[in-house]
């Protein structure tokens, strides 16, 4: 199993446009963050892990030193030893030698994540997934139906606990930025409300890195400029910030005032992608063609199903490889007829892969790309039953997964070289 099969990392940056005052009504935004998600899920499902430092890794059996496996999540017990998420596994082991290392199960976590979003959708249709274990919801217009925003937060916490046996931290604010900052204030199992009237002072004591978008690099630069707290940032001359950070500097200063007018955008409302790609890093660099093909098979299916969910068809298929030395190689192919089924895309993807097989160097990553996407306005029906059946298989997989979870129905070939953890 690879690390990148966990859904992608949070998208950065909150925005403030000049018209931020357009919201006449004060918004009620919640940010829900499932605490130490992967580790908590494992602890909830395997009681013997409770109270113990747990590290979740994609490749727990990898060679200790220099191996690329990282701690995808550390339980709070492990964090007490200074272990951080994303830390190389060997380093985490040095800090916390008695930690229990558990192989992560991306499919299981994705399944829970989807159910989590379903729970949130019972409170409002404005649910924006932010990462596998976080989401924003806007309850401005549905608050009154459930009591108030704090009541909603309490109900969500209860439902998450009941359904998954884990805790979550919820931040409530007048916008996504403040909600996110608030949820980070109390972990685990927190509930923090920051009211609009208390801004910006309510967040001014916080260090600059409380703002999403200020990472280690920007933080160090700001510290050098004498900016340590959000108050420092808010009161800093804007011109100097602009010079140091460009336009981002202005955004960050706005953020220090707790200003953000970006709406909560439900997944369905996010526009169709212009291209779809799906890539996976191998636990260990490999020369094994079957393993590479199996990964490509799985990734192709994943990309095709995503394309299908958006009702798109592709005119470009690409495959790329990254080698052990980080050099890359890939090729795109324009297809003469728009394609939308797994069988069609697979044919092109594998034909491209063949050019690079056998691999000349150890392969670190393989990825597939679908481009030139066009909306499917209607469905052409095949004259031949066997053709229509292939299409039905794709639709069936999508439907089944929607109902029964992402690992409920798989094509067998994507299991080769892949360990599925049964619990």
């Amino acid at each position, binding site marked *: 199993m690879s690390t990148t099969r966990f859904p992608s990392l949070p998208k950065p940056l909150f925005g403030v446009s000049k018209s931020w005052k357009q919201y006449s009504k004060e918004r009620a935004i919640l940010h829900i963050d499932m605490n130490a998600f992967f580790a908590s899920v494992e602890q909830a499902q395997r009681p013997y892990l409770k109270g113990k430092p747990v590290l979740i890794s994609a490749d727990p059996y990898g060679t200790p030193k220099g191996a690329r496996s990282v701690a995808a999540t550390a339980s709070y017990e492990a964090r007490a030893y200074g272990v951080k998420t994303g830390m190389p596994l060997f380093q985490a082991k040095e800090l916390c030698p008695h930690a229990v290392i558990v192989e992560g199960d991306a499919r299981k976590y994705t399944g829970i994540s989807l159910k989590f979003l379903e729970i949130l959708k019972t409170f409002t249709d404005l649910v924006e997934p932010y990462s596998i274990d976080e989401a924003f919801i806007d309850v401005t217009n549905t608050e009154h139906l459930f009591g108030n925003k704090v009541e909603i937060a309490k109900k969500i916490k209860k439902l998450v606990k009941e359904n998954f046996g884990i805790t979550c931290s919820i931040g409530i604010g007048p916008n996504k930025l403040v909600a996110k900052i608030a949820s980070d204030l109390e972990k685990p199992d927190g509930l923090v409300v920051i009211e609009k009237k208390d801004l910006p002072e309510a967040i001014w004591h916080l260090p600059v890195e409380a703002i999403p978008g200020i990472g280690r690099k920007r933080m160090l630069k700001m510290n050098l400029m004498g900016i340590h707290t959000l108050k420092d940032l808010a009161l800093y001359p804007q011109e100097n910030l602009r010079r140091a950070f460009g336009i981002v500097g202005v955004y960050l200063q706005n953020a220090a005032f707790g200003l953000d007018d970006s709406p909560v955008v439900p997944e369905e409302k996010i526009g169709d992608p212009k291209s779809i790609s799906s890539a996976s890093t191998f636990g260990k660099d490999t020369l094994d063609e079957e393993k590479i093909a199996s990964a490509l098979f799985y990734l192709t299916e994943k990309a095709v199903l995503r394309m299908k969910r958006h009702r798109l068809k592709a005119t470009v298929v690409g495959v790329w490889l990254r080698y052990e030395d980080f050099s890359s190689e890939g090729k795109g192919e324009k*297809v*003469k*007829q728009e*394609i939308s089924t797994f*069988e*069609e895309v697979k*044919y*092109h993807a594998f*034909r491209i892969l063949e050019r690079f097989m056998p691999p000349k160097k150890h392969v670190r990553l393989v990825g597939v790309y679908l481009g030139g996407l066009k909306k499917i*306005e*209607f*469905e*052409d*029906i*095949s*004259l*031949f039953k066997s*053709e229509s059946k292939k299409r039905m298989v794709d639709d069936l997989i999508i439907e089944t997964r929607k109902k029964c979870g992402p690992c409920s129905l798989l094509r067998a070939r994507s299991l080769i070289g892949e360990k599925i953890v049964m619990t």
Partner: protein
Amino acid sequence: MLIKILKSELEETLRIATRAVSSRTALPILTGISIEAQGDKLKIRSTDLEISVEATVPSTIEEEGVVVVPAKPFYDLVRKLEEGIIYLKSDFDGTELSIEAENNIYKFRTLPPGDFPQGVPVPEGKKIVLNGDDMIDAIKKTSRSASKDESRVVLTGVHFESGKNSITVAATDSYRLSVVTVPCNYVDEGIEFLVPVRALDELSKIIENDELEIVVTEKQIFVLQGNWVFYSKLIDGQFPAYKQLFPEKPSVEVTVEKEKFVNAIDRIASVFKVNAITMEIEEENMKVYGHSSDYGEAMEKISVKSTGNIKVAFNQQYLLDGVRSINADLIRIELQEGLNPAVIRPLDGEEYSYLLMPIKS
């Protein structure tokens, strides 16, 4: 090598002989043509390993020899030369080919002739003899229906099957199917083969309205006419059984003027960018309409003769291809309820049918 030839004759030979030049440069030798002078004949060949063509032209050969030159610049140059006599000369080791006319000398660096694939002599096999125009007609009517996507190799081929004094040609991309039967002057029994549509597209550009001979072997077909031989690999695979797809009895039969119908679809689809066209037949009226996500709504009315009322939607491209491919003033459309195929035919005669599926909207 030393050849004396008329520019116009060389140009015409090259027009035919360059049809199989490879467009891909993976094998540089295949971007060339082989010029072979032997006896009193000049033979020019090209191949991309799948299709090949050889054209022969009588000429005065003063010294025999073989050279391979880059096809495109060579042909382009010959085309632009003035009319008159041309000399093709190569030095003793064949590394250069010079084209000399009255006032011009061009020297082409050649490619190693040993690398160029050997030609294949026409073998014994089953035979079809038919008129060149009929062959072109069959290709034009079917080739559009063949699949362009190589993921279904069998459907990228055009299917030929011999009948009694005729041959039935069919192609499908699984959404529509074209079937045409053309008469033959001679045809052996039990012939069935699948030719890549690309080969036929190239072939249709060199066929003249004259008798044409096709020799079929297990793996290849050879097409002979006049001074050229064209051969292609066949596709190995089972073409879908298509005859059973034709509905026994249509729900509604509509007769419409081709010209009016084509123009209506063309306006709605090409100009107004409607992709899904609905045909609604009521009494003697056909409403053709659709929604364009770019512009809005489009509707046209055409008077027709029909045996009933029905409403069906089609992919505009497939509908237009089908209607356009019919050479008749009046066309007959057989429609069925539900998700069942429609058949478009010329009003008189059964020799051509175009089958297409409706769409799920």
